[in-house]
């Protein structure tokens, strides 16, 4: 029983806790409100969507209602978040503000805004608003909405759209990217405008805007427009440079004017309270017409590689203050770009100076004139260059490319090339180049060594000994000498090592010696000795040549010996004949006469020579 009771209590507590937690977690309130419910035409109003609840911050952005029937969306004017924690309970309030501008007159209902959270769609309350053709004299940006207070809905007697409007005028409607165009806003009025305030600046997304300073009090002048005479006051003027191609819309500018209105007096008090200057002042909101600009892309063909993006007309000039300087003296190089176009956008030119120059960042100055036609002016870049080393240095031309609006072509301007003649400064030899070691620095302080005074040996320039004939000979002659030595050596060796060779080489010599001796004995008295000597020389020669002992040869053997060596038989015959004569004369009585002996001597010599030739 007790246990049952406990269970019941437990279940009860569980259910309660659960339901509370579900209620807490799921509950999101969404409410919408407007800053005012009666709004003039072309006036803006703020729609505020508020999400509250402890999980409101997790709900995401609400879906805003579609108001295109009577207003255009101007943009979100912000989000605010408020988180409060009271006794551990967190409450979050997030409010989103959206700005709209009315476009239609009439009574409209703003549909509920919705937000989806955890699969549930939460909707806000619908709001009824009324758009009236002319605005009431309310504070334009009343902080607190006064929904039910009726506005001073007084139609202007003397002024409607025809009598007071804001006109946006552009100088051109078809432009190239970066081509300047002038946008001006003028109030055209036939009523007295005492004051105006700008509610909303025109939307100029996609343009680079350059404002004209207008001063506090705009200049007014008269102008006939649509057959009516207006007082015109130009309240805003700007030069616009479109940054990308395409169709661009310059959104309307909204202003509010205090207009003095002549009214019929309804009562003394009226006039007394309302207008001390015999008129009533009403606030009228007006918006300018949106302007569409067609931005054409720049042609692709002929586009230089270094195209800066500038469009307009420019001149480029450059000059240096001096072209002949000493080292370490500064040179000033001034580059000036002037013309019509977006001068501010002119990039710093790339200056290609020789590495021997020290270059500093340029001093840039701008001078901009704003005129009716657009922006003109000039931009100067002043470079300071310091040459460190002497020589003739070249500063290469600077190039500047732009799109010329007159000829509709790209143009590249260039500066002249400057030749800078740098002379040695007085401190030329004093410059101690960095990167020297201690030893080297010490060396710089010293002087060169003195000249050579001793008499030198002068030589012909380019006379290299190795190119001369004598040098070649000094190489060749030893080689020949080696060859000769080898030959000599071989000869010597044969002489000592080969007896037969030696005898053969000496045979002729010995034979001739003997013949010579025989010639001395050439007389009738010594004829026996003469023939003996000849026989000796004949036999000796044979012995030497054939390397046999001469003593062992008898005349009969000679023929066999010679035949064995394949000697011409005629030579053999000749030789044998001589030998036989010798044998005969040696042993016969002395009968030979001198002529006979002389003849024989010649025969013997011929025989030896003949044999010499064939052996």
């Amino acid at each position, binding site marked *: 029983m007790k246990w049952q009771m406990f269970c019941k209590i437990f279940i009860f507590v569980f259910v309660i806790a659960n339901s509370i937690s579900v209620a807490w977690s799921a509950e999101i309130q969404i409410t919408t409100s407007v800053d005012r419910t009666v709004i003039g035409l072309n006036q803006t109003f703020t729609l505020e969507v508020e999400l509250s609840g402890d999980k409101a911050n997790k709900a995401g952005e609400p879906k805003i209602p579609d108001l295109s029937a009577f207003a255009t969306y101007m943009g979100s004017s912000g989000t605010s978040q408020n988180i409060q924690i009271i006794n551990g309970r967190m409450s979050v309030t997030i409010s989103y503000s959206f700005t709209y501008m009315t476009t239609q007159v009439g009574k409209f209902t703003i549909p509920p805004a919705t937000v989806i959270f955890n699969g549930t769609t939460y909707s806000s309350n619908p709001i009824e608003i009324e758009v009236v053709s002319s605005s009431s004299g309310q504070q334009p940006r009343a902080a607190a909405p006064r929904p039910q207070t009726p506005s001073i809905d007084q139609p202007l007697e003397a002024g409607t759209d025809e009598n007071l409007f804001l006109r946006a005028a552009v100088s051109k409607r078809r432009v190239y990217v970066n081509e300047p165009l002038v946008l001006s806003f003028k109030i055209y009025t036939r009523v007295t405008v005492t004051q105006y305030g700008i509610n909303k600046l025109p939307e100029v997304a996609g343009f680079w805007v350059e404002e004209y300073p207008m001063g506090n009090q705009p200049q007014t002048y008269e102008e006939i427009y649509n057959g009516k005479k207006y007082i015109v006051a130009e309240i805003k003027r700007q030069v616009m440079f479109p940054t990308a191609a395409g169709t661009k819309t310059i959104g309307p500018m909204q202003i509010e004017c205090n207009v003095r209105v002549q009214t019929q007096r309804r009562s003394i008090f009226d006039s007394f309270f309302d207008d001390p200057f015999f008129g009533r002042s009403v606030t009228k909101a007006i918006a300018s017409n949106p302007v569409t600009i067609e931005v054409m892309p720049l042609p692709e063909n002929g586009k230089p590689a270094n195209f800066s993006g500038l469009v307009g007309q420019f001149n480029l000039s450059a000059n240096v203050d001096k072209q002949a300087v000493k080292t370490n003296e500064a040179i000033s190089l001034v580059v000036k770009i002037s013309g019509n176009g977006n001068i501010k956008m002119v990039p710093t030119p790339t200056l290609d100076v020789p590495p021997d120059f020290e270059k500093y960042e340029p001093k840039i100055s701008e001078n901009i004139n704003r005129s009716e036609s657009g922006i003109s002016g000039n931009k100067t870049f002043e470079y300071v260059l310091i040459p460190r080393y*002497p020589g003739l240095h070249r500063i290469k031309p600077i190039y500047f490319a732009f799109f010329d609006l007159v000829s509709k072509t790209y143009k590249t301007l260039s500066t002249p090339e400057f030749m800078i003649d*740098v002379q040695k400064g007085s401190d030329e030899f004093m410059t101690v180049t960095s990167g020297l070691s201690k030893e080297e620095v010490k060396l710089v302080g010293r002087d*060169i*060594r*003195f000249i050579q005074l*001793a008499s030198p040996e002068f030589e012909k320039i380019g006379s290299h000994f190795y190119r001369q004939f004598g040098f070649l000979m000094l190489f060749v002659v030893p080689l020949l000498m080696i060859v000769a030595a080898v030959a000599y050596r071989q000869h010597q060796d044969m002489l000592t090592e080969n007896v037969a060779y030696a005898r053969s080489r000496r045979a002729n010599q010995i034979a001739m010696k003997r013949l010579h001796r025989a010639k001395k004995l050439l007389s009738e008295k010594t004829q026996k000795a003469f023939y003996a000597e000849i026989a000796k020389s004949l036999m000796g020669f044979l012995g030497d040549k054939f390397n046999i002992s001469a003593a062992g040869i008898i005349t009969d053997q000679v023929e066999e010996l010679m035949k064995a060596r394949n000697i011409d038989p005629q030579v053999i015959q000749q030789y044998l004949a001589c030998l036989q004569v010798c044998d005969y004369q040696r042993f016969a009585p002395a009968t030979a006469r001198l002529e006979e002996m002389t003849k024989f001597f010649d025969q013997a010599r011929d025989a030896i020579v003949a044999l010499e030739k064939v052996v």
Partner: protein
Amino acid sequence: MRGLKIALFSIGLAITFMALAYADHNQYLFDQANQLYQQEQYQQAIDKYLEIRNSGYESWQLYYNLGNAYYKTRDLGRAILNYERALKLNPKNEDIKFNLDLANLQVVDKIVVPPQFFMFKILSDLKNLWSLKTLTFLTLFFYLLLTGLIIMRILLRDIRVQRIVRIAWIPALILLLLVGTIFIVRIHEDSTLHYAIVLVDKIDVLSSPDDQGTELFALHRGVKLQIEASRADWAKIRLADGKIGWIKKQAFEII
């Protein structure tokens, strides 16, 4: 036959005398130039030194003194050029090396030569140890020594002579090969490698042999270059650190 001999002899004698006379005249000019140098009239001294060179004669002392005179007139480029020429004729002279180092310190461009492998450095030092003239005579000396030893070995049978020859011919051959190799390498370098010195204050080195070439870097007076090739007015140069480019020929002079 006899007449021809006399004619040849007299012509030879005349040439010798003329050479002697020239040498004498050069000697005279050299002394004069040295005096001018000592009187600090460097420009006149330079003119006299150049007169000797223009007559077709040279010596390392001439180039050394000329380099000194140019140094004194602050012509760093020509000073270095002449020191380099002197060093070529006499690579071991301390005075030339000292003055050349001093002059090179004032060259603007510091060319950092990548360190050489020590073996190559030893070889390179060995190669440049002697002047070409000395190398010629050294090669010739060892050649004649070796051939003389060979001839002695062939002809003389004396045991002592044979022993001496057997010991001596191997070192003679090794020395001949060493000196001969260096000699041939140097002759080859002499006819193919050309070094030059920049003589103008500043010259742009371009990427191609025409005025439109991209400026690669600039060189200044006194820098030593190696000439690799040439085309009309332009020469392809290489620096000691390996940079390559083209410059006008009038900017430098070959050593």
